[in-house]
């Protein structure tokens, strides 16, 4: 209670009356902008043209299903309105394209016009906050941080908060409290490492299944590592939704900058590079691993030929263990479901355990590197990715069985698990803020 009160007071300690959103025509820009406006801030949406900013404002209204919200939002364009809007803002929210040069240029412009006491937040999904603040003024660097909402922020509350080297720690505390209480976020502080916490862990799994798709085909992979393994959406369908180009940017950035025990799972498959160059960008381009057209049967990418085949013509293995897990999840018997997962035999069960074991191993090995504690990693995977948090899986599988899965698959056993095994820890996970059962999905 005392903590809540102190945090609430901190959120009130600094009025955020005016917010300016740059890149307000983009999905992330206008949806995040809607959050600030909903919190009562007078918000200005800026884009290259006023028309684009207006489109963003309409999008914000649609996102919260209220035209009343749009009354709190002004619109403008960079060339005419940026200097004044930025100068008046208490908080400047930069959501331009995820590209270092473009962001760098925009931040330079902001630095020129902002008040020395205003806050600058960027919504980058993995670029270095410290690097973005380089060659900026000292006051800018002190007041600059990363605020990474996940798409769509109206639904997904997990949010990463990243300080750069020069960021004022008091500002980080304030934004944490402000975002929690005023924007309704579940905040996770992460290190300024490539991909931060969520994407670093999540895209490891996503890219690994892209690699596996080459051998087994997308339809089979999305079934073997389907929703029943603890996610709201099957992984390749997720990559389609995220966009292959975005997937590439995130994976390449991490592969270039990081050295860890599983970095080879981050090497993006060549077939994806080839197809991206030919315009395959996932859902937004109409085709990715899957092609879904209204009224037509689902079509699936044949990776070798690059053609799309009717899903009904593709042979998919029956997975009796998965069906059993789905039934057990459907009646809330999550531990029994995980027992089936642990003990199921055969090639497909082995493959599923390899991927999920890889996720648990990789995520828990990152504790201390990308977040201070395990709860940070768990929170962002649950509230940011809508995936079963790694600790919840360990809790349901059991520490001993988890370690066995990792050893069987030659995966690194994280120090956290080694300790739990040594101490005979029974309860591995206990986080009341996350509604755990939700992640044990009863769907294929």
């Amino acid at each position, binding site marked *: 209670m005392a903590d809540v009160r102190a945090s609430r007071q901190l959120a009130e300690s600094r009025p955020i009356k005016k917010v300016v959103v740059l890149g307000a025509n983009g999905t992330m820009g206008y949806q995040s902008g809607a959050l600030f406006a909903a919190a009562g801030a007078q918000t200005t949406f800026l884009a290259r043209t006023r028309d684009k900013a207006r489109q963003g404002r309409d999008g914000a209204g649609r996102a919260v299903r209220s035209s009343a919200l749009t009354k709190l939002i002004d619109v403008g364009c960079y060339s005419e309105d940026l200097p004044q809007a930025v100068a008046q803002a208490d908080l400047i929210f930069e959501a331009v394209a995820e590209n270092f040069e473009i962001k760098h240029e925009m931040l330079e412009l902001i630095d020129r016009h902002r008040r020395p006491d205003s806050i600058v937040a960027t919504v980058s999904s993995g670029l270095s906050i410290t690097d973005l603040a380089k060659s900026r003024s000292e006051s800018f660097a002190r007041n600059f941080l990363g605020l990474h909402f996940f798409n769509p922020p109206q639904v997904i509350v997990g949010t990463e908060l990243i300080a750069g080297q020069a960021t004022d720690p008091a500002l980080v505390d304030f934004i944490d409290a402000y975002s929690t209480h005023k924007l309704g976020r579940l905040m996770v502080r992460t290190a300024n490492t490539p991909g931060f916490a969520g994407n670093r862990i999540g895209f490891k799994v996503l890219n690994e299944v892209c690699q596996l798709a080459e051998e087994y085909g997308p339809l089979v992979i999305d079934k073997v590592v389907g929703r029943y393994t603890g996610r709201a959406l099957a992984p390749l369908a997720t990559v389609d939704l995220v966009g292959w180009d975005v997937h590439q940017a995130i994976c390449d950035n991490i592969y270039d900058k990081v050295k860890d025990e599983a970095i080879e799972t981050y090497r993006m498959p060549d077939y994806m590079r080839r197809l991206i160059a030919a315009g395959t960008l996932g859902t937004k381009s109409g085709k990715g691993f899957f092609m879904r057209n209204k009224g037509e049967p689902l079509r699936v990418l044949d990776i070798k030929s690059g053609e799309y085949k009717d899903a009904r013509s593709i042979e998919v293995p029956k997975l009796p263990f998965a069906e059993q897990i789905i039934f057990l999840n459907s009646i*809330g018997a999550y531990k029994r479901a995980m027992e089936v997962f642990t003990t199921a035999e055969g090639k497909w069960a082995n493959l599923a355990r390899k991927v999920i074991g890889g996720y648990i191993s990789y995520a828990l090995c990152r504790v201390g590197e990308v977040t201070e504690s395990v709860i940070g990693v768990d929170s962002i995977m649950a509230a940011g990715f809508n995936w079963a948090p790694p600790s919840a899986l360990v809790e349901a599988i059991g520490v001993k069985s988890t370690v066995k899965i990792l050893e069987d698959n030659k995966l690194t056993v994280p120090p956290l698990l080694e300790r739990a095994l040594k101490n005979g820890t029974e309860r591995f996970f206990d986080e009341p803020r996350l509604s755990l*059962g939700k992640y044990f999905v009863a769907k294929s």
Partner: protein
Amino acid sequence: MSKNRVYILGGYQTDFARNWTKEGKHFLAMMRESVRGALHACALDPQDIEAAHVGNFAAELYCKQGHLGAFFVEVDPVFRGLPTSRHEAACASGSIALLAGSAEIEAGRYDLVAVCGIEAMKTVGSKEGGDYLGTAAWYELEARGVDFPFPKLFGQLGDEYDKRYGLKAEHLDAISVVNYANAKLNPYAQTRTWYMSKDHACAKGDDNPAVGGRIHLTDCSQVTDGAATVFLASERYATAYARTRGIKLSSLPYIKGWGHSTASIRFADKIEQSKGQEYVLPTVRKTITDAFRRAKMNDVTELSGIETHDCFTTSEYMAIDHFGITKPGESYKAIEEGWIEIGGKMPINPSGGLIGAGHPVGATGVRQVLDCFKQVTGTAGDYQVEGARNFATLNIGGSGTTSVTFIVGT
């Protein structure tokens, strides 16, 4: 009140924002999470439970499954052989289950009873669901062939207030805004991430369409999947429970008073019968005064707050004067003065209520009592009413037909 006190040890509610159909789940998963969560919250041994009561309105319709008492046994193998039953009184089903459980404790039959309220509603679309809810009214006479019958019935409640005392839309809008604002403080509330503002509630149009007379979308409670479980205990069990936890028995809340009455099922009959009376729904008033009398309380001023049945803004408007917070017909005064807000003179629905926290029909009565428990034990987190000692519920089934009040305090 009989001399055998009924203690409340605590409980657990599921996250009302969840869509269990989307998760592919049977309501048993919901029941299991709620009961197991409650066992965990109270650190209780499931072996100790001697009887279980399930409150549920319409699983036969929403899930094509009856016999919900039997599903309690499926929650844990140790429950095999337990006496269980299911109770139904439309939106007051949860409270009726609580009344049955508390009667068993009072009678000295059992020392520890579990009460679980549950409803899965997202199994069907809104129109079909609206039709099912119509069975809480006199279906043949009031609901057959009517789209969304309940908003219309509670719109008529507003019309009756308007006729007798005058009623302004702005006061109903304010009720909605307060509930949504409170829900933002409640980590289990369905609408905690939704956008709401005074402007939005007042805007009547495409974003906020009329659904039944003066009732607009923002006046309505939600269609919700959810379950809530609480444990009721005898003094003997509560004494041992307190001792093993190193707490005082006097720190455990108990049911200080209750009221329960049923009016004519047809809304028009209720209004006809209350003609010329101060209270628009006199049986609801009787339920509340019965609870005060049994709790040996003079009036509402002895309460620290209320969790009421705001299935629509008009029902909360009715609750304000029926509790006696204002004189009959003057509910607007409590709204204008900010009395009903957290921090006000008589906070109503600090949880967000049915509008903000959600309304899984059969679970609501249990959820309300669980929230009272949280308030009087100082464990309501962000939506805590400072120094709460006594909290009351008002749970209503149908158009003001079955009404139940519990007063919970330490």
